[in-house]
């Protein structure tokens, strides 16, 4: 119970502080960085269960539906560019997989799944099913996701001038 209270207090406090400081998407970035740092420092952090994560995702989905404007023609407009983007990201990740395999001497499937441009949860679970080194794969995905989430709001704010 104490761990949960500390986790929520630190996350909420850091999230609001980051929002108050004007950090882009500060609620997300501030709470994520603070809770992750506390956990890595050995602090009393409770990992929130899969049910809680799904509950939060569900809330995000519903809020998205009612908050955003949805134009049906968007899918048609961006489908081909999105497939082109995915092909490009997969090509980049194949090159990176070669680099990861050379640097770590991991077998190719582990290196390939570690550098795939998606699916922290899905790829880690599938790797576990296939008997591959899921913790190493998940660790690289966590490093990617955390860094990207911490950096991209700044880049977007910068791009907007």
């Amino acid at each position, binding site marked *: 119970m104490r761990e949960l209270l500390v986790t929520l207090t630190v996350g909420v406090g850091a999230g609001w502080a980051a929002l108050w400081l004007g950090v882009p998407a500060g609620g997300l970035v501030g709470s994520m960085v603070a809770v992750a740092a506390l956990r890595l420092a050995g602090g009393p952090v409770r990992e929130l269960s899969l049910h809680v994560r799904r509950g939060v995702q569900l809330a995000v989905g519903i809020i998205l539906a009612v*908050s955003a404007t949805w134009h049906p023609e968007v899918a048609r407009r961006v489908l081909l560019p*999105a497939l082109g983007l995915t092909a490009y990201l997969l090509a980049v990740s194949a090159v990176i997989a070669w680099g990861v395999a050379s640097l770590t001497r991991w077998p190719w499937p582990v290196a390939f799944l570690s550098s795939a441009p998606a699916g922290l949860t899905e*790829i880690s679970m599938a790797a576990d099913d296939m008997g591959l080194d899921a913790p190493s794969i998940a660790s690289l995905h966590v490093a990617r*996701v955390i860094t990207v989430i911490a950096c991209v709001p700044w880049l977007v704010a910068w791009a907007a001038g």
Partner: protein
Amino acid sequence: MSAEQVLAAAFVVAAGVTGGLVGIRLRLPAGALLGGLLGALAALSLVPTQIPPVDPSVRRWLQIAVGVTLGSRVRPDTLPNVRRASRAAFLVVLAALVGAVGGAWLLRTLAGLEWGTALLAATPGGMPEMILIALALDRPVDLVTTVQLVRVVTTLLVTLPLVRLWLRRAEVEG
């Protein structure tokens, strides 16, 4: 808020929850989010009345909730794994960021998106988080969601069968 609006909002939430549960059951990527989104959108298209806008503070609380759940997943054993493979981790992170900028340029050229939206759509971060950031930064969420969804689904459809095939072939040869 009128009684009719309250009923409509309750209907949208119930449809969203049902959609989310179906999404989880079907094991869709980010199934709760996608199912909830599709369920709520379907309900919205059916209700005759306008739903009142969501208070901006709700979005901020959601950002914090996603941040806490994500931060709490960084396990202490992540750091030794990343440290052990630090150069590989650096390479993966660098590729994600450089890849995102290249991808944003591609989307800008092919679909005419402006830089910020293209970057959010092209970045291989977590799909729910990128969508939530788009919402927080007042970017067109429908564009970002569509591109992110195509990326995640296509990547999973390509990478997992490829690796399975490779493992099967290695087993046969070994």
